C-alpha cells in the first residue's frame, strides 16, 4: 500500500510539470511581463523605468522559457519558468504581484472555504440519502415518477438562480441571516446557514436522483432477491442489504472531491462575500495576478491527484478482491 502511494506521488511530478507549463504558456500568450507591471503600477505616471524596476523586483526580467544569453545549464534555469516553478515544488508560493505573501493568504482563506464546503458536502450527502431512501420506498408508484420529475426540474435550474433566489428571499426579504460576509469572531454559524442551505438545495436534484438509481440498482441484485426469498421484510432488505451496499459506490464516488473541498466554491463565495479560496482565485483571475493563479492551479492539481489516490484506496477498502500493486 505504502509503496503504491509513493509511486503514485512520483507519477504526479510529470503531471504537475505539465500543469505548470500549460499555465505559463496560456498566461504569457495573453500577458507580457510589461502588461503585468502596468496593471500593478496603476494608471498614472507609469514610466518605462518604473516598469523595468517592477520586473526586476518581481523576477520577471528573465526570458520566459529559454535563456540564450546564459551559459551551460543557465540556458534553462535562468528563466522565468524555471525559477518560478521550482519554488512551487518546494511549496514556496512567494508573493503575489501586489506584494502579499501567498502562503499566509492561502492558509487563512482555506478555513472559511472549508467551513462552508464541508457542511455543505456532509449535509448534502445525508439529505440526499434520506430523500432517496424515501423515494425508493415508493418505487414504481406514481409518487416515485413525479418525484423523479421534480429532481430533474431541480437540476435544470441554473446554480446562479439558487444563489440569487436564496439571497433575495432568505437574507433580503425575510432578514433571517446576514446577506453576505463571514468572520470568525462571534457567531460564525449564522454566515454558514445561507451558503450551506443553497448548496444543499441546489444539489438535491442531481444527488438524490443519483442515489435513487444506485439504490434501485442494488435492489435488482441477486442477493436482494435471495434475501426476499428467505422472507426478509422490505425494511430489512432496504436497510440491512441495500443501504450498506449502495454506500460503497457513493463513498468511492465522492472521495475524489474531498480534497478539493479546501478550494471552496467559486460562485457561492463570491456572491456571499466569503473570504475563501474560491473567491481568492476569482479575484486573481480578474486582477490578472499571475503569482496567485499559478499557486492556486498548483494546489488545485495536487488536491485533485490526492483525490484520485484516495479513490483508488477507497476501492480496495470497499472491494477486498482489488489489490493495489
Amino acid at each position, binding site marked *: 500500500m505504502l509503496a503504491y502511494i509513493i509511486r503514485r506521488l512520483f507519477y504526479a511530478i510529470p503531471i504537475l510539470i505539465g500543469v505548470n507549463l500549460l499555465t505559463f504558456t496560456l498566461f504569457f500568450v495573453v500577458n507580457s511581463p510589461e502588461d503585468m507591471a502596468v496593471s500593478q503600477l496603476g494608471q498614472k505616471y507609469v514610466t518605462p523605468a518604473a516598469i523595468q524596476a517592477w520586473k526586476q523586483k518581481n523576477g520577471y526580467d528573465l526570458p520566459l522559457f529559454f535563456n540564450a544569453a546564459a551559459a551551460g545549464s543557465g540556458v534553462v534555469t535562468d528563466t522565468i519558468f524555471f525559477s518560478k516553478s521550482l519554488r512551487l515544488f518546494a511549496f514556496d508560493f512567494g508573493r503575489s504581484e501586489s506584494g502579499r505573501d501567498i502562503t499566509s493568504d492561502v492558509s487563512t482563506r482555506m478555513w472559511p472555504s472549508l467551513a462552508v464546503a464541508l457542511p455543505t458536502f456532509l449535509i448534502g450527502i445525508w439529505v440526499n440519502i434520506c430523500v432517496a431512501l424515501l423515494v425508493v420506498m415508493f418505487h414504481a408508484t406514481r409518487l416515485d415518477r413525479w418525484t423523479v420529475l421534480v429532481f430533474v426540474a431541480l437540476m435544470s*435550474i441554473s446554480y446562479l*438562480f439558487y444563489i440569487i433566489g436564496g439571497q433575495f428571499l432568505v437574507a433580503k426579504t425575510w432578514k433571517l441571516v446576514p446577506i453576505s460576509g463571514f468572520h470568525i469572531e462571534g457567531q460564525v454559524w449564522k454566515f454558514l446557514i445561507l451558503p450551506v442551505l443553497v448548496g444543499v438545495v441546489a444539489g438535491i436534484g442531481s444527488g438524490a436522483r443519483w442515489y435513487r438509481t444506485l439504490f434501485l440498482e442494488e435492489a435488482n441484485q441477486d442477493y436482494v432477491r435471495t434475501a426476499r426469498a428467505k422472507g426478509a421484510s422490505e425494511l430489512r432488505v432496504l436497510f440491512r442489504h441495500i443501504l450498506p451496499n449502495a454506500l460503497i459506490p457513493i463513498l468511492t464516488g465522492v472521495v475524489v472531491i474531498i480534497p478539493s473541498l479546501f478550494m471552496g466554491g467559486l460562485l457561492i463565495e463570491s456572491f456571499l462575500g466569503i473570504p475563501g479560496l474560491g473567491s481568492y*482565485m476569482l479575484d486573481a483571475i480578474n486582477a490578472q495576478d499571475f503569482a496567485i493563479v499559478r499557486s492556486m492551479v498548483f494546489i488545485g492539481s495536487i488536491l485533485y491527484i490526492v483525490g484520485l489516490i484516495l479513490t483508488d484506496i477507497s476501492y480496495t477498502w470497499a472491494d477486498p478482491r482489488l489489490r493495489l500493486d
Partner: protein
Amino acid sequence: MKPLLLWSDMLIYLLVLALCLFFLRLRSDPQIRDHWRQVFSTRLGMVTFTVILVYVGIALLDSLHFRKALDPVAGSPRGEIFYDNTVTSVLDVMLGGMGERFERTYSAPFALKSFEKQDMKDDNGAAFRDFPLLEHAGRHLAQPEDRGSDILTKSARALLWGLLAAAVVVGLQWYLLRSSSLPWYASWMTQAVVICLGVWLVSISRYYHVLGTDLGGADVAFQSIKGVRTGVLLGTLATLIMLPIAVTLGVMAGYFKGWVDDVVQYLYTTLSSIPGILLIAASVLLFQVYIDLHPDFFAVGLQKADARFIALCFILGVTSWSSLCRLIRAETLKISQLGYVQAAHAFGVSHTRILLRHILPNLVHIILITLVLDFSGLVLAEAVLSYIGVGIDPTMGSWGNMINGARSELSREPVVWWTLSGAFFFMFVLVLAANLFSDLVRDAFDPRTGIRRSAT
C-alpha cells in the same frame, strides 16, 4: 441583401447535416432502431424531443444571417451597393421587428407607462414629472382602461390564428403518420401549444412588451428568444468540437496501449487536474487578445463576437474532453479483448479496418449519450461563465449575459423581476427538456456501462 455566413452558422448547419446522415445510417442497424423506438414510444420522449426541436429550429432560423442593403446614394459614381453594418437574421424578420421597438428604459410587462419618472412639459410649457407613456406599447388604445379587454381580444384572435396554423401543421402530420404506433399525439399537442404561443407572442408584441423592457429599453422577450441560439449552439458545438479529439485519442489509447496509452492518459490527467474555470478564463482571454489584435479579419462586430463564441465552444469542449476520452479508452480496451477482434487480428486484418469496422460502431452509444448528457450542462455553464466575465461577448444575446446584467435588479423597489424571469424561463424549459430526454436516451442505450456516473 447580402447573406453573411458566420463560422458558428456554418458549424451548426454542418452538425445538423452530419446528424441527419448519421441517423439515416443508423436506421439500417435494427438494434439501434429498437433503442430509438423505445425512446419515442413514451409520451415524455415525444414531448421533450419536440421541445428540443423547437429550440433547435429557432436556433437554426437565427443562424441565417444577412446584411440589409443601404439605399443607393444619388450621384454615387459606380452604383456600388453598400450594406448595413448591423446583421439581421431570418428570425428577426419573422418576429416582426420585435427587437426594433426600443423604449427609454425599464418598463413592466404589458405596461403602458415607463417604469421611471421623467421630466416632461405639458402643453402650456410647464414642467412636471411623471411616468411617460411608452413609445411602442398601447399607443393604439383610446383609453388606458381598455388595456385588459384589448389584451384579451387580441390574445383570443391570435390564439384562433394559432390554432388554425396548428391544425394545418398537425393535420398534415396526421395524414402522413396515421399508421404509426408511436404516441405522436403527444408531440402534436406540444406543437400546437408552441405554435399558438408563437403566433400570440409575435402578434401581441406589436402592441405591448410582453416581458417588459430592460435598462436600455430593449424588449426582454426578444432578448430571451435571441438567447436560444447561443444556448443551443454552445450545447452542441462544444461537444462536436471535442468529439474528434476525444474519440481519436481514446480509441488509440485503448487499442494500441503501451506508450500511446501512457501519453494519452498523461494528457487527460494533466488537463483535468487544472481547475476548469481557470483554463477557460485563460483561454478566453487569450482568444480575446487575438481578436483584438486582428480587427481586419472581421468585417462586422458580430463576427468578432462569433469568433469568441467559437473559441468558448472549443475551450469548453477541451475541458470536458477528458471524461469522454477516459470512457472511450476503457470501452476500447474491453472491446479489443473480445474474441472477434482477436480473431480479426489473427486473420491479419489491418488496424484501420478493425478500428473502423469493429471498434468504432460499438462506441456509438457512448458518444451519443455523452452528446445528449453534456448538452444541458453546457447550457448551464454558459450562464456561470458570463457571470465571471469570460462568457459570451456582451454584444451577442445570451441568457448568461441577461442574468449577469439583471442581478442587481432584484434589489430595486419595486422589484424589476422580468429580465431574470425571461432568462430563467427560456433556459429552464430547454434544460429540463434536454435532461428528461437524455434520461430516456440513456435508459434505452445504456448497456450498463459506467456512464451513469458521469451524469451526476
